[in-house]
Structures are given as structure tokens and as C-alpha cells.
């Protein structure tokens, strides 16, 4: 039994994590223990449990296990303010602590403060706390996220590509031969990717020096974060074989945080030194200074048979995909006969012929293989044999002859000989039809069986239409990740590289005698950086154009959205579907039950991409490829019999189950259940990869084993004999840090299930629901949601579309981007000045560290009507709150200028001499020709004095070299600030990129306070614009003197049914009063009853309603008002960016109509529908004014006689000035006439009296 292959990536991370975790944890534990003690004494107080109340626990356990939501990182646990009543006890316990603390101080200092967050136990839990498996098993989740999850699939996939796939590709294209010299060869013996470096470091000398490049430098300097790819080669030079090592063949962009990245394995402290954010997930590339993500692509699985019925035609199809070839094969049912269809074949071929050609000659054997002993299937299949007599095909030879004659001609026949049909048919069947089932030594049996199985599936579906496969079933889908996309891209480019290399050496070797000995090494660099540029171009444009697979896919990569931290995370978990958006079928868009736990049910866009763009759930992993051979061996070890030697009786006999490995039948077993459990046992003890899945399909009597890449899977707790395998003992070990998630896997406590296997299991959501049939236990129910939907508190109380709306809006919220947000110069950057973490948090928020990079503020909200400026979701803002910084945000914009180098040697320059002291627009320019840092830029201010050489062509008058400035003429190309609102120059960066082009990036800053019309939203899909900013004196106030920050109209609630928002207010209020963090985790969270108790205890109404006094009249408001904190997000849509008006302004040159859009100072369009209104109303003069006079009125001379246009009162056609009159018409109409005339269409204008006398 081969041991499980050790995966480099994840295991290393795991090891590192384990090491970190093994550091003494004592201080934290003991302190946290102290801190929780007072709480335990006050059970009612802390009864506000932060645990996911999976199961109503006894009060005492709740108090202990829930011990609160204070981060346990040493000091914070101690210093964090506890509930008011605890204060006394806490001070009393304090004196003892300092001594202990002093002793242990060095240890916490060595640890990263923030890494505690990902520690499995950080909610003030101590080692001594009792463990309740029902409530504490969720601790596996942070442990999982440490090893896998969210962005890790991108990184794992890339690592797999670099470490494994790359070598396989080179292995497959290992030798380059020459057509001219058959002795010559060049063999690649190895390929490696080095650490990232700069291009100039790479070119200098062969000795590789450690580079100090950082991803952030690449962002700033518009470089590509890439590493050299090196190969070892051996080749023939003269009569000797030469070996060379470390030959660079190109550069590969490196995924951030992959194992080749400089950030890999660095501590959080180092991240700061590298100007990188420690929370930033990585998983993207930096290409020419831009962050590019390869989105996850969803596809129908390859190499699997899918039975579908399209337009009444039943068919089984399989898309075969190997490294060499991709093709699609069908077995279709037409008029009750089965045929095989393939692109290479001119027509459909009766299935019987195919089977005969593959060596199954007897009709009896064929019918047994396809139908077995089942008389119904036999009767259904029998008519297929009619084709034999009709076409006179009985033997293998005849069948091959028949098939061969139907093969499409690939290339022109060489002329002198007849096509050999038999050979062609054999060739075709062996390598083109169903390529993924290999044929070794003319043994067609496996392939014949495959075809037979496809035929059988069609028969079955014919008999029972429910057996048609569901294309939308997630188990039939595969996700394509960055590694796979890069792998096909690299393969294509590497093949081309070898091809060009071969061409080059052929050219030299053809020459009969050479001056010097031929050294192929000299030719390796001739075609330079095609490989580098090809990959770089694909990544930066997103166009994957591969000739070999006839693949032309656009939009594979996207610019990583850095609007907020959440938008970046949301992008990394996004899955785009290959289905076209226009199709009116609901199937692919609908929520699939099999998505459960794998794809987020809430997070999908509205509109055309609805349901096609999906997001991964929190606890998913996408598999990478595992080796098939060990699995195949194991199948036989477990007692299954080889299917090649089995007859149809044995295969389809009663109780016989066929074992499929990746869709290909390989064995037969009569004890499928035992086989399954045995196989699983091997997986659970780690003898085969944890990502190999196995399940029984009772409809097809098949045991399916999958090892392929791109399956979505998630971990579940194993249940045996009605008991969870994860017991308190193991959770304790996890807490202690002696076990990590991988240990749980190898001990067989937890396992990964993919969609197919999940469908074959009985999974219990809660521990209390476990019965004798249960096989697995859910780790945590809230993991069915994704990262973005996880921000919503109490989402299980909201109407579901509201959660979907919030998922879209959460990505537009202004907040913090990353810890390095001020060192990076983004094109557009929105930052909130005082972001706050939400009062009502969720587990997901803490796991994805949204509380470290929040986007919003806790606003005190009064739900009441006020002033009438709050209708239709408008909000009333408190002016004093706005003055204090509520909703204040900063907008950074980048203005980048490149000083281009031209082909003739000239280059742009900054011309400080052009500064005109008399020109007020130049007043902010410094001595270097660039605006001074810190200056205010107003409209039309010049910020850069650039000069461009007048002559940039190579063929200049002076000829050849044109040293810049040397007598050349210069043109001023100054840049000036265009926006109406002023900004400040925040930062100016100068650098050079790869081509020694100087780049200047000017970052400007605006600070904006909320104004009328700015958009805000809570976390429940409740968006609204500011309707009025009311003075604080006029706002209602409570008897504590609290005025709200926001007044929200209560009409927002009834129709939207966002109960979660009310619960957030309630929990938030209780949290504020008690000084604790409350939780709104999905399917759990703080209970309303507990919150009401807290409010009651603090002297408030249990309902969250307060008595308010009107600030205007000073009288009490006639009713109690629902009043408390709700987390509000400021969205990026701000009035300042949209405000626009125009009276007169620029016009488009072609049509002379006003330009379009705010950025071009465009006009406001009176559209078609508005036009319809005016027509319907009969306002003809208004219509004329809007559509012509105020737009593109134009006077033309029209000849009455010929109806054509003349000019200056003269008709050119009639050669007369008589009867030429001036009329006004839209310029666009005149243009149309002329354009028609240019196409030989004559248009006549008929003139009539404007005011007819009659």
C-alpha cells in the first residue's frame, strides 16, 4: 500500500501552525480562567450566550462555556471591561496577577497578537473549562480555516500546478528532436520555479541571489510579480552529451501567498515590514502593477457520462479530456436504435458495429454486456442487431471497414495509396473516441465496456425517464481554478516554445557544414520571452486563447476589487458559470438542494447573472488531482474483481456492483457495502488521500470512486454507532494545541465529503438528532453561508431576498481595505475615517477578520417618523453626529503619468521650465514641474508640466538617433485637474518600471462628510439615502439625553420583513448597556429572550422601545420608539460623484448633439419614453424645442425642385438659385441624408408651406 502522498503546500502550513500552536499556552489559559470566574459567579449576567445555541444547555454550562466574547489574547482578556457588576470582583482578583504576568511576559510577546484570532479557542475559554461537544465542535471551523478554506483553494491549486503539474507537462514534452539531424536530441530533465525577483536581477548573471522584491513594490512600480522558470537539460553537442542546469526559459507570475511567494510562511510582523497586509488573503497575481484574480470557473465534469434528454432524444454523452486531446462522444437513441456519434465520424454509427469493431463479436456477448439478463433491456436492445444484416456487418473486420469508411478525412490522402479503412478505424477508436479510456496493446475491452455502459445508461433512461441525469446537480460539476487555467496556458506556450526552438535548430542543422560546433544552448534564448509575455498577457487581459483546444475564453481574469475588504474576499470566493446569460432556462440559475453547505444560498447578484454567479460557502475546499493508480490497486486489494475478465452475466447479475474510478468501470464487486466501508476505512486512516470520494449509486448498481480535481467538498464529523467521533477529549487536545485539523483528519474523526458522497450519507445537523442511521454530523450549520452572507446578523430571521441584497451591498460599503491601505496607491480608494466593528457580530465576521477591517459604524437608530423628509427609505441624519465624524469618508484617487520612451530614442520629460508665474493655474507647481505635495487642487489647476517630443517616429528628418532634447521640438502636454470638486495632493511617487520608463503616480485626497443624497445601508438589505440632516436640537431625545444618529422610517419594516434588523437593534442595545459583544450568528446567536432580560435589568423596556421627548416641541412623543444601535454602512454611491447639470456645453463632433455623461459635461437626455409622453400629450412645440432647437438644429438650403440640399441659396443639381429655401432640421437628420447619399440612396425632401393660407 503506498502511503498517502505528502502534499507540500498544506502540510507545511499545517506544520507551521502546529509549531505555533505548540508554544506554551499556559498564561493565556490561566488568565482567561481568572477572567471567566466572575462570570461564572453571575450566571444570569453572562447568560447572554455567545455560543451558537445549538442545544439548550443547562444554565451552568452555558455560563461556563459561553464565557464571553472577549478575545483571549492574554492582556485583553484581563483588561477588557466586563459587565458592570463584575467590576468589583475583578479588581479583587487583580493583585495576584501582575506577578504571574511578569514571569510569563516574554512568551506572549513572541506570539503574534492577531494570530490568536485564528486560534481555535479565543473566546475567553480556558483549558480547564468543561467541553460540551454539542456546542464546542464549532471550534473545528477556525482550525479548518487555518489549513484550508476561502482562498486556500486558489493557493493550493497554484501550488499543485507549480510543484506537480508543471513537472508533468514537461515530462510529457520532454524531448526535442530535430528533423534535420536524427542524432540530435535535447531532453528536459527537470523544471523548477525559483523565488520571485526583478527582471534586471534575473538578467545580470546566472548566480541566483536572494531578491528583496515585495508584492507591494510590484504594485507601486507597475511590475509583474513573477519568478524565473528554470529547466535542467541534457543535449547532444557534436559527439558528446552536455548537461546544463538552471536554464531560464521564462517567468511565471506568482500567486501571492503561494509557496513560491515571498510572503509564504512569514509571520504577521514580517508582513508589516514587507508593506503587506497580514489579513489580506492572497490568492491573486500582481501583473503590471494590477491585482488580477483568476475567477473559479464552473463546468460540467469531464470524463463522466451524462444522460440527458434533449427535445425527446435520449442520449448519453461524455466529454473526454486528456492532455493530448479533448473530444465529446455521444451514444444517442434514434427511433429506438442506439448509435454512437462523434465529431470525427461522418455519420452516426450503430452501437453494435462499434462494439464489434472493439472485438466483441458475438451478438450474445454484446447483449449481455449492454442489457445483462434483464429481459426488458434485452428486448429494448435487440432491434439494434438489425443493422448487422442490413449492412452485412458481422465480424470485427467488417465493422472496422464500415467505421473506417465513415471517418472524416483529416488530411488529404497521400494519393498513391487507397485509404486503409481498417487501420484508420483502429486508430480512431483507440485514440480519438473516448480518449480518456486508454487502449494498451490493442486491448479494446475496457473501452468496449465503457461504450456498453453508456448504451446501458441510455436503455435505463429509456425505460425509466427519472434516470436522466440532472446537469445542474452540483455533483456533476467541476470547478476550474487558477492552477488548472495556468496549466493549460503554460502547456500551450511550452509546446510553442519547443516548436520554435526546434525550428531554430532545424534551420542551423540543415546547413551541410558549419563554421563552429553546433550548440543548441545558444538557440534557447533566441526567441526570448514569448513564454513570459504570453502568460503575462493572458493574465492581464483575461483572454485565454489556446489553439490546441480551440479555446477562446475572454474574461478569465478580473481586476481584484478593492472597494472594501469584503469585496476582495467576495471576489476570491466567486464562481462564474460557463452558461450564456441570455438563455431563458431557470435550471442553472435555481438553487440546487445539492448546493447545501457547498455554495452560499444567499450570495448571488441580482439581474442577468442571478444564479449563474455563485459563491463558495465558508467551509468548502476544492480538490486538487490525486493519483489514480494507488486507488486502482486498492480497489483490487479490497476484493473487487477485474471487470475486463468479467462477462455480462457477472457484471449485470443480481447483486453485482461495478466499481468505477473517475467514471471508468474497472472492477466488479458483489459486496458493495462492505467494499465501501473498507475503502472509507483506508481513507480515514490516511492510506489514501482524504479527498478521494466514494459513494454507491443504487440506480446504476455502481460504486463510484473519484480522485479528479475540481470537486467541491467540505469536512464533516464522522458518526459511528450513533456517537460522534469528535469527543471532548479531542476538542481538549485541539484547545491545547496538541492537535490540529489535519490530525483530526488522520485520526479519522473528521473527513471530507464531496457532493456525491454527501448525497449518499445521512448527515445530522445537531448532535441531539443523531440516530442509528446517522453517518456524519455537521460541524456548524452557519457554514452553509458564505463569507459575505456571514456578515449579516440573524440572517435566519430575514426574508431571503434581503440577505441577497445585503450580499451585493456589503461589497460597496466604505471602510478599511487592508492594513497597508496607505502605502498602496490605488486608482480609486474609499476609506472611512472612523470605522467601527459591529456591536452585533457573528462567528463568520471573526473568522474572516471583518472586525479587524470593518466597513461601517454603529449608529444609534430611532425607528420613527420625522419631518416628512424620510419617506421612501430616506434617512434623517443628526447634524451633530455628522460633525463628530459619522459617515465621514476619504476618497483617494490616482493620477498616473508615464514618461514614455519613443522608438527613436526620444522620451517625454517633465519640463519645469514651462512654469508660467503669471498663470494662476500654474501656482501650485513646484520647482520640479510637479505639483507640490499637500496643495489643494481646484478645477483647471495644472499638476504636471510634461513635454512630449514633437517628432517621435524612427524615420525623423535628422535620421536615426535622436537624443532627447537635442534640437528636437517639444510639445507641451500638461495635465490639469478636471473635476469640479477640489482635492488635496496626498502623495507623489516616482519610480521606474521594467522598461526604464519613469512613472509618476500622484495620489489625491478628498475628505467627505455625509450630505443629502448619500447612500447608507444597514446589514439587512435596507438601503436609503440621506433625506435631511437635522440639527441635534431638533432631534428627539431619550430620558438619558441620548439623541439618535439616524432616524429611520418605520414603513421600511412591514413589507420587507427584516426581523433580523430588529433583533440586531435589540442585541446591540443589550450589548451596549452591558458592555459585551453580542452575536447574531446564523442559526444561533444571542437569544432575544436573554437580550430582553438584560434590557430589563438595566432599567429599559424589554421590547427595546424607549420613551422619547421631541426636540422641537419639548413634549413627549405620543408613543414609545424602538431605539438602539444598528450597524450602518456607507455605500460608495455619493452625490458628489453624481451631481451634474448643464445649460450649454460641448457637443459631439459627428452629430453636433450634446455629449453624453457627466465626465464629458454632457446634456440631460430626453429619452424615448419621455418623447412618447410629449407626443401623447400633443406638446409639439416642446417636442420640437427639446429634440431639435436645444440639441442639433441646423439650417440647410433645400431646393424645391429636386428636393436635394444645396448651399448658399444655390442648388448644385439644378444649377439654379430659384426655389431654394432655408429650413431648420436636426443636424443628425442632415447627416443621415448625406450618409444615405454616399451609399447611392437618394432622399428627396418635399417642402410645404409652414402656415398654409388655405
Amino acid at each position, binding site marked *: 500500500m503506498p502511503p498517502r502522498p505528502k502534499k507540500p503546500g498544506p502540510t507545511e502550513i499545517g506544520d507551521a501552525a502546529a509549531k505555533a500552536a505548540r508554544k506554551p499556552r499556559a498564561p493565556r489559559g490561566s488568565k482567561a480562567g481568572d477572567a471567566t470566574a466572575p462570570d461564572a459567579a453571575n450566571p444570569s449576567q453572562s447568560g447572554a450566550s455567545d455560543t451558537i445555541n445549538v442545544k439548550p444547555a443547562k444554565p451552568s454550562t452555558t455560563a461556563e462555556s459561553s464565557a464571553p466574547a472577549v478575545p483571549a489574547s492574554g492582556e485583553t482578556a484581563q483588561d477588557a471591561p466586563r459587565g458592570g457588576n463584575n467590576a468589583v470582583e475583578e479588581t479583587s482578583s487583580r493583585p495576584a496577577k501582575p506577578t504571574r504576568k511578569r514571569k510569563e511576559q516574554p512568551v506572549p510577546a513572541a506570539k503574534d497578537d492577531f494570530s490568536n484570532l485564528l486560534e481555535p479557542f479565543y473566546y475567553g475559554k480556558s483549558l480547564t473549562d468543561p467541553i460540551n461537544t454539542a456546542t464546542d465542535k464549532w471550534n473545528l471551523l477556525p482550525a479548518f480555516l487555518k489549513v484550508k478554506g476561502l482562498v486556500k483553494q486558489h493557493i493550493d491549486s497554484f501550488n499543485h500546478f507549480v510543484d506537480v503539474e508543471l513537472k508533468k507537462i514537461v515530462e510529457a514534452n520532454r524531448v526535442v528532436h530535430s528533423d534535420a539531424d536524427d542524432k540530435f536530441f535535447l531532453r528536459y530533465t527537470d523544471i523548477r520555479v525559483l523565488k520571485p525577483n526583478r527582471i534586471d536581477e534575473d538578467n545580470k548573471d546566472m548566480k541566483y541571489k536572494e531578491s528583496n522584491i515585495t508584492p507591494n*513594490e510590484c504594485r*507601486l*512600480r507597475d511590475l509583474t510579480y513573477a519568478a524565473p522558470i528554470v529547466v535542467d537539460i541534457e543535449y547532444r553537442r557534436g559527439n558528446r552529451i552536455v548537461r546544463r542546469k538552471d536554464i531560464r526559459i521564462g517567468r511565471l507570475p506568482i500567486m501571492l501567498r503561494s509557496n513560491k511567494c515571498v510572503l509564504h510562511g512569514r509571520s504577521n510582523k514580517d508582513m508589516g515590514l514587507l508593506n503587506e497586509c497580514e489579513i489580506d488573503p492572497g490568492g491573486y497575481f500582481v501583473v503590471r502593477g494590477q491585482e488580477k484574480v483568476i475567477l473559479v470557473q464552473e463546468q460540467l465534469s469531464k470524463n463522466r457520462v451524462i444522460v440527458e434528454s434533449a427535445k425527446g432524444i435520449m442520449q448519453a454523452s461524455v466529454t473526454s479530456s486528456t492532455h493530448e486531446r479533448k473530444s465529446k462522444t455521444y451514444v444517442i437513441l434514434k427511433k429506438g436504435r442506439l448509435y454512437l456519434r462523434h465529431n470525427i465520424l461522418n455519420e452516426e454509427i450503430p452501437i453494435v458495429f462499434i462494439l464489434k469493431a472493439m472485438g466483441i463479436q458475438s451478438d450474445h456477448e454484446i447483449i449481455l454486456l449492454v442489457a445483462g439478463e434483464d429481459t426488458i433491456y434485452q428486448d429494448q436492445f435487440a432491434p439494434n442487431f438489425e443493422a448487422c444484416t442490413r449492412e452485412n456487418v458481422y465480424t470485427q473486420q467488417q465493422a472496422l471497414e464500415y467505421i473506417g469508411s465513415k471517418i472524416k478525412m483529416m488530411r488529404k490522402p497521400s494519393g498513391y495509396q487507397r485509404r486503409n479503412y481498417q487501420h484508420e478505424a483502429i486508430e480512431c477508436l483507440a485514440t480519438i473516441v473516448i480518449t480518456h479510456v486508454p487502449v494498451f496493446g490493442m486491448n479494446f475491452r475496457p473501452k468496449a465496456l465503457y461504450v456498453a455502459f453508456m448504451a446501458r445508461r441510455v436503455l435505463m433512461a429509456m425505460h425509466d425517464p427519472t434516470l436522466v441525469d440532472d446537469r445542474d446537480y452540483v455533483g456533476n460539476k467541476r470547478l476550474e481554478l487558477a492552477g488548472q487555467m495556468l496549466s493549460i496556458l503554460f502547456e500551450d506556450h511550452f509546446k510553442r516554445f519547443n516548436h520554435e526552438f526546434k525550428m531554430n535548430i532545424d534551420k542551423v542543422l540543415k546547413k551541410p557544414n558549419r563554421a563552429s560546433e553546433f550548440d543548441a544552448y545558444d538557440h534557447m534564448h533566441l526567441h526570448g520571452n514569448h513564454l513570459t509575455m504570453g502568460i503575462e498577457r493572458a493574465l492581464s487581459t483575461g483572454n485565454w486563447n489556446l489553439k490546441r483546444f480551440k479555446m477562446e475564453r475572454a474574461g478569465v481574469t478580473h481586476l481584484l476589487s478593492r472597494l472594501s475588504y469584503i469585496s476582495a474576499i467576495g471576489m476570491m470566493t466567486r464562481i462564474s458559470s460557463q452558461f450564456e446569460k441570455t438563455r431563458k432556462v431557470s435550471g442553472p440559475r435555481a438553487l440546487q438542494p445539492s448546493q447545501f453547505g457547498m455554495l452560499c444560498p444567499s450570495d448571488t447578484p441580482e439581474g442577468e447573472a442571478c444564479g449563474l454567479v455563485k459563491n463558495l460557502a465558508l467551509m468548502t475546499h476544492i480538490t486538487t488531482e490525486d493519483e489514480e493508480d494507488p486507488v486502482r490497486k486498492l480497489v483490487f486489494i479490497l476484493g473487487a474483481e477485474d471487470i475486463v475478465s468479467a462477462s455480462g452475466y457477472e457484471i449485470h447479475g443480481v447483486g453485482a456492483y461495478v466499481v468505477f474510478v473517475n467514471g471508468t468501470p474497472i472492477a466488479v464487486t458483489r459486496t458493495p457495502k462492505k467494499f465501501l466501508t473498507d475503502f472509507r476505512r483506508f481513507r480515514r486512516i490516511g492510506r489514501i488521500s482524504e479527498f478521494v470520494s466514494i459513494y454507491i449509486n443504487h440506480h446504476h448498481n455502481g460504486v463510484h470512486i473519484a480522485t479528479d480535481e475540481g470537486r467541491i467538498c467540505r469536512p464533516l464529523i464522522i458518526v459511528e454507532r450513533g456517537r460522534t467521533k469528535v469527543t471532548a477529549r479531542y476538542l481538549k487536545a485541539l484547545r491545547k494545541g496538541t492537535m490540529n485539523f489535519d490530525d483530526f483528519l488522520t485520526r479519522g474523526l473528521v473527513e471530507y465529503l464531496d457532493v456525491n458522497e454527501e448525497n449518499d450519507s445521512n448527515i445530522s445537523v445537531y448532535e441531539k438528532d443523531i440516530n442509528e442511521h446517522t453517518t456524519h454530523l455537521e460541524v456548524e450549520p452557519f457554514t452553509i453561508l458564505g463569507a459575505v452572507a456571514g456578515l449579516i446578523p440573524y440572517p435566519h430571521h430575514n426574508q431571503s431576498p434581503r440577505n441577497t441584497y445585503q450580499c451585493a451591498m456589503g461589497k460597496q460599503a466604505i471602510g478599511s481595505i487592508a492594513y497597508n491601505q496607505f502605502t498602496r496607491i490605488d486608482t480609486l480608494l474609499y476609506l472611512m475615517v472612523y470605522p467601527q466593528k459591529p456591536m452585533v457580530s457573528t462567528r463568520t465576521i471573526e473568522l474572516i477578520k471583518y472586525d479587524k477591517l470593518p466597513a461601517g459604524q454603529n449608529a444609534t437608530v430611532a425607528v420613527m417618523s420625522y419631518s416628512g423628509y424620510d419617506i421612501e427609505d430616506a434617512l434623517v441624519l443628526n447634524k451633530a453626529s455628522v460633525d463628530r465624524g459619522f459617515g465621514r469618508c476619504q476618497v483617494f484617487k490616482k493620477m498616473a503619468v508615464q514618461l514614455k520612451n519613443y522608438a527613436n530614442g526620444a522620451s517625454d*520629460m*517633465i*519640463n*519645469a*521650465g*514651462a512654469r508660467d508665474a503669471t498663470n494662476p493655474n500654474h501656482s501650485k507647481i*513646484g*520647482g*520640479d*514641474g*510637479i505639483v*507640490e*505635495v*499637500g*496643495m*489643494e487642487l481646484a478645477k483647471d489647476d495644472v499638476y504636471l508640466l510634461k*513635454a512630449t517630443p*514633437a517628432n517621435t517616429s524612427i524615420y525623423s528628418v535628422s535620421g536615426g538617433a535622436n537624443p532627447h*532634447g537635442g534640437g528636437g*521640438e*517639444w*510639445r*507641451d*502636454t500638461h495635465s490639469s485637474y478636471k473635476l469640479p470638486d477640489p482635492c*488635496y495632493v496626498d*502623495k*507623489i*511617487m*516616482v*519610480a*521606474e518600471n521594467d522598461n*526604464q520608463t*519613469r512613472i509618476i503616480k500622484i495620489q489625491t485626497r478628498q*475628505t467627505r*462628510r455625509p450630505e443629502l443624497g448619500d447612500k447608507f445601508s444597514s446589514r439587512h438589505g435596507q438601503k436609503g439615502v440621506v433625506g435631511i440632516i437635522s440639527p441635534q436640537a431638533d432631534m428627539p431625545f431619550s430620558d438619558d439625553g441620548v439623541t439618535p444618529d439616524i432616524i429611520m422610517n418605520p414603513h421600511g419594516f412591514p413589507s420587507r420583513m427584516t426581523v433580523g434588523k430588529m433583533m440586531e437593534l435589540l442585541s446591540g442595545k443589550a450589548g451596549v448597556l452591558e458592555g459585551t459583544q453580542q452575536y447574531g450568528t446564523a442559526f444561533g446567536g444571542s437569544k432575544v429572550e436573554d437580550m430582553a432580560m438584560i434590557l430589563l435589568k438595566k432599567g429599559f423596556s424589554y421590547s427595546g422601545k424607549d420613551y422619547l421627548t421631541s426636540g422641537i416641541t419639548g413634549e413627549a412623543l405620543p408613543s414609545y420608539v424602538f431605539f438602539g444601535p444598528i450597524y450602518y454602512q456607507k455605500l460608495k454611491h455619493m452625490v458628489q460623484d453624481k451631481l451634474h447639470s448643464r445649460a450649454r456645453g460641448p457637443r459631439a463632433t459627428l452629430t453636433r448633439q450634446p455629449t453624453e455623461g457627466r465626465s464629458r459635461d454632457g446634456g440631460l437626455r430626453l429619452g424615448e419614453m419621455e418623447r412618447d409622453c410629449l407626443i401623447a400629450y400633443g406638446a409639439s412645440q416642446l417636442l420640437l424645442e427639446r429634440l431639435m432647437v436645444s440639441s442639433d438644429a441646423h439650417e440647410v438650403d433645400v431646393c424645391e425642385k429636386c428636393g436635394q440640399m444645396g448651399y448658399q441659396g444655390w442648388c448644385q443639381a439644378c444649377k439654379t438659385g430659384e426655389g431654394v429655401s432655408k429650413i431648420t432640421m436636426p443636424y443628425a437628420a442632415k447627416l443621415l441624408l448625406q450618409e444615405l447619399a454616399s451609399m447611392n440612396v437618394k432622399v428627396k425632401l418635399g417642402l410645404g408651406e409652414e402656415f398654409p393660407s388655405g
Partner: protein
Amino acid sequence: MSGYVPPTSTAAATTTTSTGEGRSVDYTCGDCNAAVSLKRGEPIRCRSCGHRVLYKQRTNRMVQFEAR
């Protein structure tokens, strides 16, 4: 209406290109924070640490902010 107006900027070729030649401008290194003074045409690189991202120093002119 307005006819064709020849672009004015083409004609206005700058005459005073030489004034900026000898002047050096002070920058701050993005890595080690050292002051770097660069002349025209010099490669952009910190003299002490070799870092290639430089920032322009803040103006010493008075800037008045409007506090809102």
C-alpha cells in the same frame, strides 16, 4: 459658428527647457526614508538602500485646510 481652430498648444513649443536642467529635487526613499536628491535624467534609486520607489517631499508652502 466656430470654425476650425488650429490647436494652440502645438505652436507653443516650449523655449525654456534649460532652466530645469541643473536643479535637483529632493525625494524621500520609500524603504529607508532617507532623503534622495535627484537631478534630471538620473535613475530613480535611493543612494543608501537601492530602493526604487521614491516619494516627493511635502511642500513647505503654507496650506490652509477648511475644517468642516
